[in-house]
């Protein structure tokens, strides 16, 4: 029904082109494949006109015009290579080069440098500059990942505008003015951003470079594979670059439906683990109380013998590190060859949590963010969990969308939110109930959950005006003490809006694990098991294990009670992932046999009976699924170390020893078989899973609202993008960004406890204690302490008591900071 935008015709270098009204001359020229040199313009940001490189001659205009800013007009006659234009281009390049150092031989940008390329093609060939070039101390370190070279900077302002416009984090700014201008962070402090890798990518010179890529390779020495990042769950398209057998870096690959042209810093810099020396290279078998190297045959024989005798008393704790095909094969292996119905990929879910009753993932495509006018972030700490989605949300905000956040901890992007309802942990449901009452005209006075009445009313007003709302529900809501109620309340809100809430839960390829059927009650495609049992048995040529499968928490409890013989862990680390470490310890101490299949000696693996070394996802071929259910192709860039193997290969070998044939010649064959069960399966297909209705008869968490008055603080376990887990701790850049494990307190509580920023604290609960670095901010309500998961050396699950709705901790000062507390990460 909407008409095409009007078009206009203009001529460039004698060739005519028809473009939509509003197109700049520069972009019109691109359509004709006429190259115009340019630096400051980046097509994801409005034009600036600062560098003056893109000058063209426009008939009847007295001066040369910057083609990136000038809109094409009907009948315009443009020339891109007149003597005047050429003189202008040479002049601008000569100016840019007068203070640019001759660093090319040692500059990481060489070979992919727009300044090099444009000087070669459009430059004067010889500079008349004979004065003394300025020099600055270089490089300047701006934190663990970014290096700044002031001499190389041509002040194109791209990095500054990226921070202001795209990321909204104002990480890099211009300081001083004129020729004293310099791009920097304030006071040259480490840069505070989750997206700074993008500024390195868009810098047209080598002024901003990556510490982890420094001097590693030249672009022509790199091989590239088009793949997908698998760290957080957004599934950004990437290029994996390798020099020889060494993965050198990741770059974003354009995928307009997911990450556009961006990538977060976890994606950019979180690959160090791939080549870490800690990679497991051969199987380990526990003998004489110690894990000792063994052959594959010995290890597989042992595992098979234990599985054979255990039958249905086996539990599979899968994680987020399997490809879709490997997860499918795992499902087949355990259901038919081992004969157990106990499969679950959700080891990090709380027992009784609504997380176990709902399908994880978005119910709308990521691109729907762009079209939303109101976005409700309920317990979704988006920049810590799915950072690139924030870039899309920021775009929506710039187009007028209102973001309403409902969280127990303030979000980093607070400044861009229309309303931020920071509530007491465990009382989010009451806040949503109050919002719904307000929308229904039943508003009652008073604060709710620590949120002031006035704020509630303003937020309700915005929600009431929503025409295209989007609801993103995250773990801070789902796994909260009142998570069930909160989810139910949000469901009511969504019903009014006739939308479905998106469950923002799951990292890596958790979505592929669900798609492949690694769930106790579902088969491939997320279909209820009873519906697909016969078809699966037919395809797999063997009956499936009967009976109801146990969820992860149920498996762990069962193991602790002696009801399981084997716990098989693949691509997961339950020792640190499960909400309550004691539950895992009880399981480990009681269950006779634990197999861990993974890439590192995690805490779980270190206590296992057999450890089987696997490949990691940059070494794999196949597909993975992202948070919107998009199936994307993985391509390997390097081979794995030592004798590490793919997961499906291991299951096939074990199946053979169990007398069953599970043999596929390629991932494609597995994928094709999956398609027989999931007809819509295809690369780039978007397959969100159907959300089951939450069951009503699960225990509801009821947090007593009164604090015990003993000075203890309510514990809020949360997420941090930069943590120190088995992979992140082994990526030097990420470990640097994460810093030492930390806990976030309100200044009131800090004052009462005599604690200052950076001090070392001891947090003690009924279950254990850990030492953490204090971060003091008014980012949560007093009486609470926020501790991020993911720091394996000081895991929050050592404190959590999952038998109750919430945990409380005593906080004591261990040592005041005496200088740097270590690391640059500060979380909040």
């Amino acid at each position: 029904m909407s008409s095409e935008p009007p078009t206009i015709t203009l001529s460039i270098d004698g060739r005519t082109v028809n473009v939509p009204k509003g197109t700049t001359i520069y972009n019109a020229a691109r359509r004709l494949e006429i190259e115009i040199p340019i630096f400051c313009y980046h097509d994801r940001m409005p034009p600036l006109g600062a560098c003056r490189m893109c000058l063209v001659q426009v008939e009847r205009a007295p001066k040369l015009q910057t083609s990136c800013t000038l809109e094409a007009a009907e009948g315009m006659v443009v020339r891109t290579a007149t003597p005047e234009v050429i003189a202008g281009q040479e002049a601008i390049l000569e100016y840019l080069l007068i203070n640019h150092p001759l660093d090319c031989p040692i500059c990481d940008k060489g070979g992919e440098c727009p300044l090099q390329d444009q000087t070669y093609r459009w430059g004067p060939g010889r500079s008349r500059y004979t004065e003394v070039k300025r020099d600055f101390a270089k490089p300047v370190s701006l934190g663990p990942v970014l290096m700044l070279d002031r001499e190389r900077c041509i002040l194109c302002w791209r990095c500054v505008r990226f921070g202001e416009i795209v990321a909204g984090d104002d990480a890099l700014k211009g300081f001083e003015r004129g020729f004293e201008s310099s791009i920097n962070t304030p006071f040259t402090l480490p840069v505070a951003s989750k997206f700074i890798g993008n500024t390195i990518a868009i810098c047209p010179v080598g002024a901003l470079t990556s510490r982890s890529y420094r001097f590693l390779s030249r672009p022509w020495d790199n091989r590239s594979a088009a793949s997908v990042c698998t760290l957080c769950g957004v599934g950004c398209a990437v290029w994996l670059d390798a020099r020889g057998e060494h993965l050198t870096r990741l770059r974003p690959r354009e995928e307009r439906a997911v990450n556009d042209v961006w990538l977060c810093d976890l994606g950019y810099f979180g690959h160090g683990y791939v080549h870490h020396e800690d990679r497991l290279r051969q199987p380990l078998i526990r003998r004489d109380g110690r894990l000792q190297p063994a052959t594959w045959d010995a290890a597989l024989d042992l595992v098979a013998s234990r599985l054979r005798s255990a039958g249905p008393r086996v539990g599979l704790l899968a994680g987020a590190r399997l490809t879709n095909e490997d997860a499918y094969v795992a499902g087949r292996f355990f259901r038919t060859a081992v004969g157990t119905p106990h499969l679950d990929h959700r080891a990090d879910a709380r027992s009784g949590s609504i997380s176990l009753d709902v399908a994880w993932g978005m119910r709308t495509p990521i691109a729907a963010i762009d079209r939303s006018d109101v976005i409700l972030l309920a317990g979704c700490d988006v920049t810590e969990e799915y950072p690139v989605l924030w870039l899309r949300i920021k775009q929506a905000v710039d187009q007028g969308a209102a973001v309403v956040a409902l969280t127990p901890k303030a979000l980093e992007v607070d400044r861009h939110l229309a309303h931020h309802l920071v509530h007491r942990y465990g009382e989010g449901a009451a806040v949503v109930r109050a919002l719904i009452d307000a929308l229904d005209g039943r508003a009652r006075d008073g604060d709710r959950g620590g949120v002031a009445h006035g704020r509630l009313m303003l937020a309700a007003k915005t929600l009431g005006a929503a025409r295209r709302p989007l609801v993103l529900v995250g773990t801070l809501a789902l796994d909260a003490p009142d998570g069930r109620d909160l989810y139910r309340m949000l469901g009511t809100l969504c019903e009014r809006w006739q939308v479905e809430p998106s469950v923002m839960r799951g990292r890596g390829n958790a979505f592929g694990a669900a798609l492949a059927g690694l769930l106790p009650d579902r088969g491939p495609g997320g279909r209820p098991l009873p519906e697909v049992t016969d078809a699966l048995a037919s395809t797999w040529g063997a009956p499936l294990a009967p009976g109801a499968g146990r969820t992860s928490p149920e498996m762990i409890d069962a193991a602790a009670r002696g009801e399981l013989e084997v716990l098989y862990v693949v691509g997961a680390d339950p020792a640190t992932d499960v909400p309550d470490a004691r539950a895992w310890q009880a399981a480990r101490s009681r269950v006779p046999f634990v197999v861990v299949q993974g890439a590192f000696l995690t805490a779980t693996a270190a206590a296992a009976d057999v450890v089987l070394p696997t490949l990691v996802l940059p070494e794999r071929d196949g597909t993975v699924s992202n948070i919107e259910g998009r199936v994307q192709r993985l391509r390997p860039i390097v081979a794995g170390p030592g004798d590490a193997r793919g997961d499906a290969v291991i299951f096939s070998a074990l199946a053979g020893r169990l007398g069953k044939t599970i043999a596929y010649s390629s991932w494609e064959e597995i994928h094709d078989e999956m398609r027989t069960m999931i007809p819509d399966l295809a690369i780039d297909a978007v397959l969100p899973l159907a959300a089951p209705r939450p069951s009503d008869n699960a225990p509801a968490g009821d947090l007593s609202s009164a604090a015990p008055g003993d000075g203890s603080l309510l514990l809020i376990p949360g997420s941090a993008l930069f943590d120190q887990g088995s992979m992140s701790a082994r990526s030097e850049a990420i470990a640097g960004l994460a810093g030492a494990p930390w806990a976030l307190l309100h200044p009131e509580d800090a004052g009462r406890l005599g604690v200052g920023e950076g001090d070392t604290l001891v947090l003690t609960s009924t279950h254990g204690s850990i030492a953490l670095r204090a971060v003091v901010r008014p980012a949560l309500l007093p009486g609470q302490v926020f501790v991020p998961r993911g720091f394996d050396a000081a895991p929050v699950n050592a404190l959590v008591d999952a038998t109750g709705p919430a945990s409380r901790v005593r906080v004591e000062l261990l040592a005041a900071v005496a200088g740097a507390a270590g690391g640059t990460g500060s979380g909040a």
Partner: protein
Amino acid sequence: MAVLSEGAKTEIRRLVAQFPHRQSALLGALFVAQGEAGYLRPDVVAEVAEALDLPPSEVTSVASFYHLFHFEPVGREVIQVCTNISCLLRGCHRVLRGFSEYLQIDVGQTTTDGAYTLRTAECLAACDEAPVIMVGTERYGPVTADGVDDVLARHARKQGRR
């Protein structure tokens, strides 16, 4: 721990109320903060940023653009000697040398007692009184090379009368 006084914060709030958009009060707020703290230390910048709900990086970036904001300590009075064309034509460099010799400091430096910082300035829009200087917020001209002590004494008397 608060760095700015309640009075300063009240003044900043008054400035904010004058404009439809908070950031417009930034330059005025920075002068209030600088007036109290002497110069813009990181903690001072952070308080101004918080008062205006702006990222500290933006506040620092904006402040650094303008010559009248100082990120290092300056003397109690900043002496600015105009060296633009009209003052140059009327001998401003003799005056600059005069101040330098009298105060025993180079341009850009501060006297050891912290009383004066000597700087050059661009056109102060008083070219009919060239050579022109400012001491703090007061303008003086024409100034002569052998009259520098006199103008400083005059200024001190003026300040004393306040």
